[in-house]
């Protein structure tokens, strides 16, 4: 069944954060629901729609940024009380806008996530979870990494309180009281949680999660252990989405997904039967502006039914009925504060001729009133502008333009080992300057329409390795860039964002490119691989060595974890080699099967220690077998790439033969196969530019590092190595590594 939805824009408020818009339950005779939304100016707006006009119900005064907005009420009654979290305060409003609660919590940080259930309030700051009952402190938990969302399984079904924390280190933590019951590893850093079907399913224990790298999954949170049900990976290709479900019997072909996946984080999830087939569908809002509806097939696996793309990230989503009685719709709010609906109501073009006239009349009045408003504003702005200009004559006046908010994200994309930088601003972006003091590659993103221009840069004396400008097309509020880093080369990437607004200002954002930038946290470690070990001892505190770890590796929590010692596992996203870091006060041990990783760590750590004048005793234990092991790990990747390059090279010639001969019967099956798969091969080849060069670079590093530990400098032999790589053969390469 084809789902046809039409977009309607209702209202624009200020910039909104994640999960700050809800629909109030329908009350009385009226079937249409009211929308309540909180923005970063601190204003809570509640409005309904009458004759396609937004009619405000109430609006609060500006205040601190609103980070969450939830609905609640006594258990068993209609959930129509509005709870708003801003700063460290929670306020409650009735549906008429009367404030009935103002609760200043004892949290020192601002609230990042909130859940309300009856008289229980669950709040999370960056690392701290707090449970309040009737505004009295009940339980407390300190998480190992940043908390992005909190949820509690339905109390009425389970008859006990089971809070669940979504944490940045890729786990969901299930609590009871102040204690951890168990944790569940999920495929990416979870960014949002939701109860399945809105009430946790029949058992009340089914939980939906979305990750910041675009995966959605369903987990059954049983009393003692989790049972994963399915996962959806997103593979964005031009023209459509391909969905792979992972149930008990469906094996995900990771190889197909590899290299095509695109980092599109999930910001909000809701359940609503928009298809009208009696089963609640999953509504998903992503940070690239995609809205998706997943239905279920007969086997119970999720299937993509509909998708729509807006130009900015979708911060909240909910299904309901707002615009017109009898027509269901998906209501969503975007980053810049637009509340829009994707409604099942057909637009006027398909309506009867009389109706069309009426519709356009309504539209006309709306447009005229908007125009009038604009004119007034324009007049005011001109006056203010003159005053501003005038002030430039005075010697005492200052020009201070308030800081505009930028929604930015800098994340490692596991599947092609590159970073993606997403910048989103409330206003249209005029231009963005990207500057880096380390060598990085800036890759082209298809979606991006901005005109990029690379400027020549001199590394001396200004220390620039990359200077690029992006001149955006009109009305671009969101810019996505892809950056490829090299491990071992670290520094800062800066983005100067200039929006298209007077007086013109620009804001700079900094992003760290860490020495082991391609590593990712993981929770498994294979002890059987041959390992190189680096051990440090010295007069350093736990906090100091932890800060070095934060400096070296991504995804390490900034706060030192509780306890005496800590162990972190990492995986190299490009080569799949691993790293174990265990450290405590005065001692650190690092194990990796990749000698280059150890070499980089050694260099950076000794440099950092010297900077702080700390004397380090470094010892290392190099396992000769590990080099061979790493080479064997690289081998299939290298071979695949070489073969791919060879095949792609042949395509044109084969096509010519095909045109010449009229058919392909005379070709050997291998060539025929290439011809059949030509498009796929070319696509893949295009998507992994310079993949081979990157692999070559890593093998060269491996070679140099191996002998660096032995104390010999083999830089002069590198051309020889490259020659061998050009005529690649695994055994020759191995011998070369061994015999030097």
């Amino acid at each position, binding site marked *: 069944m084809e789902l046809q939805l039409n977009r309607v824009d209702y209202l624009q408020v200020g910039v909104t954060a994640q999960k700050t818009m809800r629909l109030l339950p329908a009350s009385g005779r009226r079937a249409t629901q009211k929308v309540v939304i909180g923005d970063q100016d601190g204003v809570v707006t509640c409005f309904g729609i009458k004759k396609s006009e937004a009619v405000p119900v109430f609006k609060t005064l500006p205040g601190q940024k609103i980070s969450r907005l939830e609905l609640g009420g006594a258990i068993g009654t209609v959930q129509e009380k509005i709870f708003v979290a801003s700063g460290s305060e929670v306020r409650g409003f009735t549906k008429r806008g009367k404030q009935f609660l103002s609760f200043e919590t004892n949290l020192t940080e601002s609230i990042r996530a909130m859940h309300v259930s009856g008289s229980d309030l669950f709040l999370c700051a960056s690392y701290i979870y707090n449970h309040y009952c009737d505004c009295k402190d009940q339980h407390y938990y300190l998480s190992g990494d940043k908390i992005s969302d909190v949820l509690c399984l339905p109390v009425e079904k389970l008859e006990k309180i089971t809070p669940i924390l979504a944490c940045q280190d890729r786990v969901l933590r299930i609590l009871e009281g102040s204690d951890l019951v168990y944790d569940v590893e999920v495929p990416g850093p979870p960014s949002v949680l939701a109860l399945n079907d809105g009430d946790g399913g029949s058992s009340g224990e089914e939980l939906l999660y979305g990750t910041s790298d675009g995966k959605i999954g369903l987990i059954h949170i049983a009393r003692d252990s989790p049972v994963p049900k399915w996962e959806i990976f997103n593979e964005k290709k031009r023209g459509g989405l391909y969905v792979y479900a992972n149930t008990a019997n469906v094996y995900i072909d990771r190889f197909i997904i590899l290299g095509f996946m695109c980092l599109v984080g999930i910001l909000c999830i809701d359940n609503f039967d928009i298809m009208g087939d009696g089963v609640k569908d999953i509504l998903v809002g992503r940070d690239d502006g995609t809205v998706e509806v997943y239905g279920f097939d007969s086997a119970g696996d999720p299937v993509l039914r509909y998708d729509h793309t807006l130009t900015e990230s979708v911060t909240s989503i909910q299904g309901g009925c707002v615009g017109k009685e009898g027509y269901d719709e998906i209501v969503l709010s975007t980053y810049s504060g637009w509340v829009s609906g994707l409604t099942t109501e057909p637009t006027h073009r398909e309506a009867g001729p009389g109706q069309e006239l009426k519709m356009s009349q309504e539209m006309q009045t709306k447009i005229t009133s908007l125009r009038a408003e*604009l004119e007034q*504003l324009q007049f005011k702005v001109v006056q203010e502008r003159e005053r501003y200009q005038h002030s430039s004559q005075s010697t005492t006046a*200052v020009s*201070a333009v308030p800081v505009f908010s930028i929604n930015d994200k800098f994340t490692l994309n596991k599947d092609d080992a590159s970073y993606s930088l997403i910048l989103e601003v409330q206003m249209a972006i005029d231009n963005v300057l990207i500057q880096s003091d380390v060598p990085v590659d800036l890759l082209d993103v298809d979606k991006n329409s901005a*005109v990029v221009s690379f400027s020549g840069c001199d590394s001396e004396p200004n220390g620039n390795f990359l200077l690029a*400008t992006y001149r955006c097309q009109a009305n671009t509020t969101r810019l996505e860039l892809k950056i490829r880093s090299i491990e071992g080369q670290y520094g800062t990437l800066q983005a100067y964002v200039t929006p298209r607004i007077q007086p013109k200002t620009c804001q700079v954002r900094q992003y760290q490119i860490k020495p082991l930038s391609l590593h990712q946290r993981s929770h498994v470690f294979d002890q059987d691989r041959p390992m190189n070990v680096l051990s440090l001892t010295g007069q350093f505190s736990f906090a100091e060595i932890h800060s070095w770890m934060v400096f070296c590796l991504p995804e390490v929590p900034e706060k030192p974890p509780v306890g005496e010692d800590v162990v972190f596992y990492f995986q190299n996203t490009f080569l799949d080699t691993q790293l174990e870091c265990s450290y405590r006060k005065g001692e650190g041990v690092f194990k990796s099967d990749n000698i280059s990783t150890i070499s980089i760590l050694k260099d950076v750590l000794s440099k950092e220690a010297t900077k702080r004048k700390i004397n380090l005793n470094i010892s290392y234990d190099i396992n000769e077998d590990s080099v061979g092991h790493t080479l064997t790990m690289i081998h299939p990747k290298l071979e695949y790439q070489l073969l791919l390059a060879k095949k792609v090279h042949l395509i*044109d010639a084969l096509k010519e033969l095909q045109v*010449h001969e009229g058919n392909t019967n005379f070709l050997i099956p291998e060539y025929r196969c290439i011809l059949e798969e030509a498009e796929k091969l070319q696509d893949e080849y295009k998507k992994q530019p310079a993949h081979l060069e990157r692999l070559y670079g890593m093998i060269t590093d491996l070679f140099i590092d191996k002998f660096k530990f032995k104390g010999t400098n083999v830089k002069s032999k590198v051309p020889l190595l490259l020659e061998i790589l050009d005529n690649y053969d695994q055994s020759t390469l191995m011998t070369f590594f061994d015999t030097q």
Partner: protein
Amino acid sequence: MLVPIFTLKLNHKINPRMVAVGKYDGTHPCLTAATQAGKVFIHNPHARSQRFSTNRLVQSSHDSDISLLNINQNVSCLTAGVLDPQLGCDSLIVGTQTNLLAYDVHNNSDLFFKEIADGANAVVLGSLGEIPSPLAIIGGNCALQGFDCRGNDVFWTVTGDNVRSLALCDFNGDGKKELLVGSEDFDIRVFKEDEIVAEMTETETITAMCPMYASRFGYALSNGTVGVYERMSRYWRIKSKNLAMSIHAFDLNSDGVCELITGWSNGKVDARSDRTGEVIFKDNFSSSIAGVVEGDYRMDGKTQLICCSVDGEVRGYLPSSQETAGSLMDTSVEQELVRELSQKKQNLLLELKNYQENSKQGELRLQVSDPDGQMGVIPANTQLQTALSVNMGSDLQPAHVELSISTSNDTIIRAVLIFAEGIFEGESHVVHPSAQHLTGRIRVPICPPKDVPVDLHIKAFVGYRSSVQFHVFELTRQLPRFSMYVLGNPATTPEPSSHVTFTINERVQRVVLWLNQNFLLPEDTEVQSAPFQICFTSLRDSGTLLLNMKPNGEITLRTDDVDLAGDIIQSMATFLAIEDLPVEANFPKYFDQLRKVLGKVDDSHSVHQKLTADMADQSNLIRSMLVQAEDSRLMRDMKNMKNRYTELYDLNKDLINRYKIRCNNHTELLNNLKCVNQAIQRAGRLRVGKPKAQVITACRDAIRSNNINALFRIMRVGATPS
């Protein structure tokens, strides 16, 4: 919403920009395009019964609608249209790097087959100016040639660089078509027959042009720009990160005015209003667009827009009917308008908020005077000063033009972005000093590679060291055309041996004004009375330029650079509004070079002939040897056969070597011919108006008659009107 009315998947690749529709039998339109391996395919869905079976045209075996035409050389351009009005049907014109073929598809015969030394990069078919018969005009290495249906070249002229695009358009509204030529030196030149009537400088190689209506035409550049010109002035242009592969004028929304349809390298097709450049329709293909054409492909009396992708996907769009005009896009116009107005409102509100916050901050700051810099608070009277000067360079840096940007107080400049076209690698140049080197003054070295006036759009980020938010100062400075020439001392610099002399009827003051506007003079040169002399040194090659003006208005320019002399004369003529200017020129060094080049051309020609004769000999030898070898094989004389085949192998190797020599010879010839063509163009550029056209025609005649002395005489003193 406009949807394609037909979609075809032709199983052939299509070479970009080589697509045409022709009615080769006078009635049925056929889509024709160049494909891989030097072939041209003709898609003829309407006349299936007809079968061609001759040497050139081969029916494609797996697709009955498609016939293939074997050119055996890489096709470089292609078009279809009426070349011979008596034929009553369209002819196909195919150009390669060495040949031009005019082909009658229906009768399967060649109209003509011409060897072209300058190659054919672009072709256009139609009538030009007063020439009665339609011409196939091709553009090659600096040369333009027009052939009529019998293959006589009735039109010939030269242009500044390799031609990349051609179009016919009634540029000056006289009812006759002028030829628009886009070339690799970024210029669009307009030829009224062989006289240049206008010249526009763009920022990149012009890859495509199309007439819109009357004197309006569209153009596309190799940096992703498309736009529309109305005569000499640009109406609008937009730039994309993708490349425009093909442009075409077509009235898609039936409002009586053609839109500019652009096919992009990322597979997008969009239609833009000719007045504003606003997108009124777009669609996406899965691969790059190869060509956009029009034709009545369904034979129902309505013309469709036909878009082809490089993978052989073809879509046809019918113009929307009058009623639905204005809503070609998916979303309704009103919704779009409301969104736009709301966005505007939001922007104004934000701006208002900015001012309010600003004044609030102002009050606050009167109490707390310590600048924390975080918000980027700067004194309101901060000003940005810019100055252009010439820097003579040092050991580390070559001489350059220096743009100095400084603030008027203790604020610092975090970074400077300069957007300008044609003088940097990309469209922008960034100066971003490291944190230790932040100051209130930034010097930007600029080396414009060409003598063109450039607008520098400067954006400077001003704040304090610790700021995260900066004020952006935006301003525009113009870089004068001859900024790379520094004032020198006439006494110490050696006088160049070459010169041009001409006389103008203008006051000295006007000439001085021109100097001030086009050169970076240290301070305004005081108005001198004639005679005066002024001397410049080039920063590029430290060549000297001497300008001498006598009281009677006679101006002498002394420089060894012919191009520079041409540029100065053209610039001066435009500034002083001179229509016709005969010039006497003498460039002994350059003429010597040219003489050598001409000698080389002759040599190359003779070598070429010799090599061709050799090759004929050798192929005869091969034939006989092959026969001998086969004879031996039949007689089972294996030893002899082996010997013969070894000899044959050696001979073959020899032949390949000779072929390589021939190739090199040919490239050399091409380069030299280009030099000759450029020389004629340069000689033309030293003159303005009528004398210019006369010089070009006369030079051409001199070359044709191989009268080299006459050629140099014409270049020196201009053409003597016969």
